């Protein structure tokens, strides 16, 4: 298990996102997909961003290193401060130093993250040389591949991506992300495309690498089981807004937002009783049809008039740093 970080960070956070709003322009139409999002990541901790498809979690992840093409993407409000510098104001040259160098990404599908026409060795050495001088790239590539648990590193360097299995490809992608010793690793659904036994291997690898290298990890996922397994803190998103955040233990054992409660209730479990689960009625609103007020109000049993008028601001609950955006947070007898 990862060591527990202090609940209250004493140092300045590695990444501080405040009021981030991201939208896309198409012609004269503007669609906002991430609304007023705030969260922090401290050095060495794993923070999870959880939500269903279309909730804006991947857009958030890509915005951290400005990987979305602008236009169509734009950010009308908010700041992203990474190690004391404002990412949204950076020049291209500045962005180039943090992309891959300090913020590295691992995406869902390793087969599309690797270039099919080049050997693994070439692609890995290219990543190393992009940010680091005076290293023996070949030697470093071998070291990285053994770090991610590929035993026959030399042979692997000579392979093309299609010669490797999905699990091995994802290990190569992780090795590539680690090539420049990033401070923050953004893992966007890194195991969704993999089988469970391979997923377990990759999760263990990410955990041990994090302990060894001391980097922070932002884990983007829809799987709450995976969050319980790897993350320290958790942010739950719904329809572009952050609805609840806090330590994983607090949020998963005493969820305060009805959506988080609902999500926990609809995930089939391996243990416990087999009672009938009731799904969350209705569907996630598409970004263009976001209702006024709290986006979850139309599907929420507790919603009142205030919920339909204005988005509630974050308020603290009993847990340390546990915040919820809801007018009617769920009470827990603890």
């Amino acid at each position, binding site marked *: *298990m990862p060591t527990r970080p202090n609940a209250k960070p004493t140092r300045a956070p590695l990444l501080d996102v405040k009021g981030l709003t991201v939208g896309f322009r198409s012609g004269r139409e503007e669609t906002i997909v991430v609304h007023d999002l705030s969260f922090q990541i401290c050095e060495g901790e794993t923070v999870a961003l959880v939500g*269903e*498809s279309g909730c804006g979690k991947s857009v958030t992840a890509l915005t951290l290193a400005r990987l979305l093409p602008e236009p169509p993407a734009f950010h009308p409000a908010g700041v992203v401060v990474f190690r004391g510098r404002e990412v949204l104001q950076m020049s291209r040259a500045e962005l180039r130093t943090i992309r891959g160098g300090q913020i590295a990404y691992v995406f869902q599908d390793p087969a599309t993250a690797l270039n099919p026409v080049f050997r693994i060795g070439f692609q890995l050495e290219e990543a190393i040389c992009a940010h680091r001088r005076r290293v023996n790239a070949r030697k470093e590539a071998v070291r990285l591949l053994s770090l991610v648990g590929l035993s026959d590193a030399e042979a692997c360097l000579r392979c093309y991506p299609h010669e490797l*299995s999905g*699990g*091995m490809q994802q290990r190569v992608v992780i090795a590539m992300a680690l090539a420049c010793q990033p401070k923050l690793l953004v893992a966007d659904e890194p195991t969704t495309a993999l*089988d*469970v*036994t*391979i*997923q*377990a*291997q990759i*999760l*263990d690898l990410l955990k041990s690498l994090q302990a060894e290298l001391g980097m922070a990890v932002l884990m983007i996922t*829809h*799987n*709450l*089981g*995976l*969050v*319980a*397994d790897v993350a320290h803190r958790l942010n739950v998103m719904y329809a572009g807004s952050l609805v609840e955040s806090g330590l*994983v*233990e607090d949020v*998963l*054992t005493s969820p305060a937002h009805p959506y988080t409660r*609902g*999500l*926990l209730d*609809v*995930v*089939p*479990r*391996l*243990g*416990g009783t*087999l009672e*009938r*689960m*009731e*799904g*969350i009625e209705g*569907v*996630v609103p598409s970004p263009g049809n976001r209702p006024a007020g709290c986006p979850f109000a139309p599907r929420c049993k507790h919603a009142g008039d205030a919920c339909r008028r204005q988005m509630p601001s974050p308020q603290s609950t009993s847990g340390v740093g546990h915040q919820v955006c809801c007018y009617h947070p769920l009470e827990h007898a603890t």
Partner: protein
Amino acid sequence: MSDALTREPALLEVSDLGVEFSADRHRVLRAVDGVSFDIGPREIVGLVGESGCGKTTTGNAIVGLVPVAQGSITFDGKPIALQSAAQQRQFRREVQMVFQDPMGSLNPRLPVGDAILETLYVHRVHLGLATRRSRQSRAAELLERVGLGSDFIPRYPHELSGGQRQRVGIARALAVRPRLLIADEPVSALDVSIQVQILNLLKDLSKELSFACLFVAHDLAVVRYMCDRTLVMYLGEVVEEAPSDILFRTPSHPYTRALLSAVPDVDKGLAARHGEGSRIVLRGEVPSRLEPVPGCPFHPRCPEATERCHTERPGYATVKDDHLARCHFTG
């Protein structure tokens, strides 16, 4: 395999099923190898395993989408290989499929109502519905059954959400009143809050319309929620079979145990934070199917493998009653 005498006569019996694909000129890939099981009337049976284990191929072989190389399939007491053309048509009507990707399995140019009625035309059961109005009302009735209204009849698949499309897929399969539904990963393309809606729908319909279901999936928690009985497949073989509550409480085969332990689970993850329980992480990956593994197919990854497992292929052993496992060290 299981003692059929204690239950109602099986609706579907699969015995020693084998499916082969030719990989190239010299080699054959044995995708399904000696699979036997049965499904009782109104029973929901889960077929679970990792990608490439042969679970989808097994489902496809039952409906005849891939040729059967070995073994027999018996439906309602009649071996399907020996049926007349008319009987085969009836078999194809009585066994229907729901696929994983509802966008891929619906014709993008066919409105939902027509997509459902097409099944009726194919199976010539529309003849009882002489007028256009009676056919429309049958389509509306089916759509209402799956929780959609008759206003969906003129809509095209691209106008629907993933969950709605899957409901249409189910309505289409049920249009001809099947007795067995083969659902191949019906919820894995859907978001979690929608998954449960579809699972509940399938469960309820199976009771109301009394059809049996072969539920193919990779998500163990979903299978536990859905199925009366569960079969675990590895490398084309069924390695364990038991009623779901027994299988998930006391898994016997080392592969099943590793699989269960590998699934990220909220309760398990929270327990692990207090230092309880540990995960079995299997070494290595699923071996290639082109080079047969001698002995037990799982031995290269098995944490408990012994000398015997390297050479001798285990047969089915009874763990207890109708709980079977294919391992030398059970029972």
